[in-house]
């Protein structure tokens, strides 16, 4: 393994210390807890937090900011934080109007967030979990609640945060975040697995002449393999998975996310985006302000996650709200 790190046990500490050294004016770490929090959470709004494992940067520490997440409880590498850290995030974010705990659908995230929500409610805080799942190839449509949370969770970090920033009550924020999730679909393709900085071993195996399609954000085994082929064909195939599953037909405008998984170049992301745009145009579907960049990564995995959000007018309006969270800076250039 050739990674630019100190001892594997120090990864979290080293990385968070650097991150906060850069962003200390707006962000802080909670004492004794693995939580990055905003310094200037507005009073009188519903809090938005998430607990998740490290290793996906800029997700999710980079999504803490105005009109985005209020706090992020981080765990170890690809491993959710224990419930006391998520509880700490909930307590910090609570302004008396309750807290939404966004939870990407993975066993550890769900278990620890579930316990933290229960503890918070025992303490009289109106904490509610909103489960995020979007990976169409991880489970069939009739088992939609078993699907994994992947790159499409990105939409909610932005939109649920901006919606809560408008002062809506917790029931409304909960409904809104669920609606964004229901309208989101993602499929991920990979050419090269990432390397675990803990074990030094590749996370999964992909043959030299193949892609894996349907791979998870930790390199979880994919649904199927695909022979190497032109990007136009790949883009069309991936778009078809989403269009078929998510009912995007008609003259809808959709928000498109082209997410690089770590190793993939901006050059490739832009070329891939062009193919998606062309394909959707043929289908009579137009794109509203796409996000293109490496937002939710899997170490140096080579790959692209394609996500569609069937946006309504409210979602489109909120998509353009300004944020100071540092992780939304893609090469789409419209999300700052």
């Amino acid at each position: 393994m050739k990674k630019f790190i100190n001892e594997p046990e120090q990864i979290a500490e080293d990385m968070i210390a650097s991150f906060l050294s850069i962003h200390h004016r707006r962000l802080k770490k909670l004492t004794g807890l693995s939580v990055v929090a905003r310094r200037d959470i507005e009073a009188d709004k519903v809090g938005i937090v998430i607990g998740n494992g490290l290793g996906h940067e800029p997700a999710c520490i980079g999504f803490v900011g105005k009109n985005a997440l209020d706090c992020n409880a981080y765990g170890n590498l690809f491993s959710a934080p224990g419930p006391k850290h998520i509880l700490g995030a909930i307590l910090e974010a609570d302004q008396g109007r309750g807290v939404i705990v966004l939870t990407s659908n993975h066993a550890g995230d769900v278990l620890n967030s579930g316990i933290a929500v229960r503890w918070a409610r025992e303490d009289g805080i109106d904490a509610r979990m909103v489960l995020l799942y979007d990976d169409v190839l991880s489970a069939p449509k009739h088992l939609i609640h078993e699907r994994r949370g992947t790159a499409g969770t990105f939409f909610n970090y932005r939109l649920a945060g901006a919606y809560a920033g408008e002062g809506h009550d917790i029931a409304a924020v909960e409904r809104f975040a669920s609606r964004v999730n229901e309208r989101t679909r993602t499929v991920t393709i990979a050419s090269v697995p990432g390397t675990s900085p803990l074990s030094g071993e590749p996370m999964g195996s992909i043959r030299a002449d193949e892609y894996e399609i349907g791979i998870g954000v930790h390199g979880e085994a994919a649904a199927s393999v695909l022979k190497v082929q032109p990007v136009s064909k790949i883009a069309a195939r991936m778009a078809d998975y989403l269009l078929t599953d998510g009912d995007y037909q008609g003259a809808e405008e959709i928000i498109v996310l082209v997410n690089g998984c770590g190793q993939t170049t901006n050059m490739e992301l832009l070329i891939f985006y062009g193919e998606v745009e062309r394909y959707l145009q043929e289908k009579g579907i137009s794109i509203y302000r796409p996000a293109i960049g490496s937002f939710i990564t899997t170490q140096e995995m080579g790959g692209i996650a394609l996500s569609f959000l069937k946006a309504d007018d409210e979602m489109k309006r909120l998509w353009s709200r300004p944020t100071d969270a540092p992780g939304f800076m893609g090469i789409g250039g419209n999300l700052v």
Partner: protein
Amino acid sequence: MLNSRQIYQLLHDITDMYEENKQELSRLDGLVGDGDHGFSIARGCQAGLKAVRNLGDGAQAREYLKIYGRELTNEVGGAMGPLFGLLFTELGRAAKADSACLGLAELAAGLDSALAIICQLGGAAAGDKTMVDSMIPTVKSLKRSVREGRSFLDGLERAALEAEKGVQDTVAMVARRGRAKYVRERSKGVPDAGATSFYYLVRKVRDFADKEGQQ
């Protein structure tokens, strides 16, 4: 039958045992997963023991087991923290509040309850190559020993044998849950690290009972 003072000591022994075996358990985990299992559990146990020590040696077994499990959960996180922590918190709930607080019946009840919650929350079933595969035969054996009126040590001997057999059964299984599911077929031929950890726990309780001169 163990009393509160013995549970206090047992948690020290369990913590030492995972410290001694952390390399081996991580090596097993590394064959199919992240390779952090042994280190995580050892770290969690240290955190649990610290909290137990803060209670002093005069507290109730129920309190010791509960705080050990909770701190382990908080420290480890991931899926393993809450699932492994449940073993201790549920044993704490099953323990009686008097001086003889943890016998075979309480062990059987506590682990049975933990098993049910682990299956429900973790979504694992028999044959998925997880800790559940060593828990199921262990709980079954403990319940049988309670019915047959066996002694504490005899019941634990039998339970440890069943737990070990459960681990051996995971060798041929293909992982369907947990981090090991990423490699699926490639997970064949390797015992599951979580099942092994559970077996080590049962064996340590058995060894402790023996050391304490329990019949």
